[in-house]
């Protein structure tokens, strides 16, 4: 009961309860709880096949869950599709960044929702305005300046700049409530990784809660407030980053402390 009381006090942007998902005979997620508070970065970790991607796909509307409920700002929602989730303010930046390499940064930020002006009954793109707005967005919200690469095709940009363009596309709409980042540091060198982690902290400082999926615990500890650990489709622990250690999280990931956390199921 105390637990329920506590939950009410906390400012949850997103809550998922009892999420279960089967693929054929395989149970990918088993009764998983997940929560995200306003203004926090939540790390989501787990071994390959632990169910991270499945959970994220359910939370971003890619798959429906077989059981369980999702609350967005305390209201129960059914995410019908990726587009529907987007319209509710759940944005995602994928590992492959999903940028069009041959277009410039601003064209990528506005891809699919270009600014245009009517002329003679037709719509003409306002490239200058999109450029100004995109560069302002990157500068003000992400502290990123493209410098001489303002007009260059995205393949000329560094990894960190590309990352910022991908994030820019996700956050430029005012109604964004949650940003999901799938392995944001996976393809980056040390320099660019530092920049990306900084980007994530900047986002949080602007009040955008972020879910970060990462393999690298170092990176997760560097940016997150809390960490959720999945193992074999189950949620095996949520820890406050400041009060936990890499050893503890690693233990949860590989199951060394399994007996303490959940009753052993012995299921493969």
């Amino acid at each position, binding site marked *: 009961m105390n637990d329920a009381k506590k939950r009410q006090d906390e400012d949850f942007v997103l809550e998922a309860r009892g999420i279960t998902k089967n693929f054929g005979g395989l149970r990918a997620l088993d009764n998983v709880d997940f929560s995200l508070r306003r203004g926090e970065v939540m790390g989501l970790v787990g071994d390959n096949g632990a169910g991270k991607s499945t959970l994220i796909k359910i939370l971003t509307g890619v798959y429906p869950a077989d059981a369980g409920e999702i609350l967005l700002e305390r209201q129960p929602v059914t995410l019908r599709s990726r*587009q529907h989730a987007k319209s509710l303010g759940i944005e995602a930046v*994928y590992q*492959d960044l*999903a*940028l*069009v*390499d*041959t*277009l410039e940064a601003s*064209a990528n930020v506005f*891809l*699919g*929702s*270009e600014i*245009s002006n009517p002329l003679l009954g*037709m*719509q*003409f*793109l306002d*490239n200058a305005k999109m450029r100004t707005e995109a560069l302002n967005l990157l500068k003000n919200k992400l502290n990123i300046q493209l*410098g*001489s*690469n303002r007009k*260059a*095709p995205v*393949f*000329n*940009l*560094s990894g*960190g*700049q590309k990352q910022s363009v991908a994030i820019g*596309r996700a956050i430029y709409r005012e109604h964004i409530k949650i940003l999901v980042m799938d392995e944001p540091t996976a393809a980056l060198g040390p*320099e*660019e990784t530092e*920049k990306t982690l900084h980007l994530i902290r900047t986002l949080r400082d602007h009040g955008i809660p972020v879910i970060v999926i990462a393999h690298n615990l170092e990176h997760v500890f560097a940016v997150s407030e809390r960490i959720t650990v999945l193992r074999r489709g189950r949620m095996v622990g949520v820890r406050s980053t400041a009060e936990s250690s890499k050893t503890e999280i690693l233990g949860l990931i590989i199951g060394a402390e399994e007996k303490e956390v959940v009753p052993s199921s012995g299921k493969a």
Partner: protein
Amino acid sequence: MNDTTPAKSVQKLIARLGPGFVLIVVILVAAFMVPRFFTTLNLINVLYQSSIYIVLAVGMTFVITGGGIDLSIGSQVALISVVMSGFIHAWGWPVGLAMVVAIFFGMGLGAVNGFVITGLRMPDFIVTLAAMETFRGFALVHSAGKIWFDFPSSFRYIGITRWAGLPIPTIVALILAAIGYYIYHKTHFGRYTIAVGGNRTAAIYCGIPVSRYKVFQYVLMGGLCGLAAILITSRLDSSQATMAQGYEIHTIAAVIMGGTSLFGGSGNVVGSVVGALILGIIANTMVLLGVDYFWRLVVTGLLIVLAVGLNQWRENVMREASLEAVKETAKESTS
């Protein structure tokens, strides 16, 4: 990274000029070999002969940028031409109506290509290769070996009249190129064509209806085949099912020479016009030199390979330059 040798600078300059460089070289060679090349009459003649390739190359720029290719355009031009000739000669349609229907008919042929490609999820190359054969077949069936000629003067007017010193087909082609340039850079259609060809997954993720845009690209190409059919039929004052063979090769070559990537995602409408002019000048020069038709084919083919090779080399140089730029940026951000 700033230790660029003079040779490298020249490389980069040539790469940046791209098709413009080839055009200059071709003009210089032509002027050197044929004194008559630089007469107003001959230059207008080159523009006149290139105008049909310019019209087709503008459409092909969109198709190739979108990650496709249309091998059926020569057959489309022939089929539209004989059908339109049938309207005018056999059915006695007014010229204006026949021309409008010709363009819509072309858009219909393009739509067939587009729907088969997107609906059956077949490769553009295979579908349009099959269409090349099928449309040519329909043209032969329709005309049954007939050659249409002696068109009404109102129709021939288009092909033979000059306004302000320029042939109407040239004026049409240049206006069209300007419109194409604007569509490419300033409209959703242009932007989404680049996106679909550049990164289909990203386009889908951003909610762009990729199949619809693919169909639009082929419809545009078909409509321009209709326009090209009008221009060529009017100019030659004749129409037959075997006309316009090899148009697809010339048009694709012009587009690739102009700097459009065969792999999709980036293109250059102005470059395509330049590419069409390059081929026009080469053809013109060989005619003036009295090169035998068969040999002209051989030389044209070899020059196409050369020019496309040059373009690929150019892309490599540009890519190297951009990689250097990335390193520079990384350095800047470190300091």
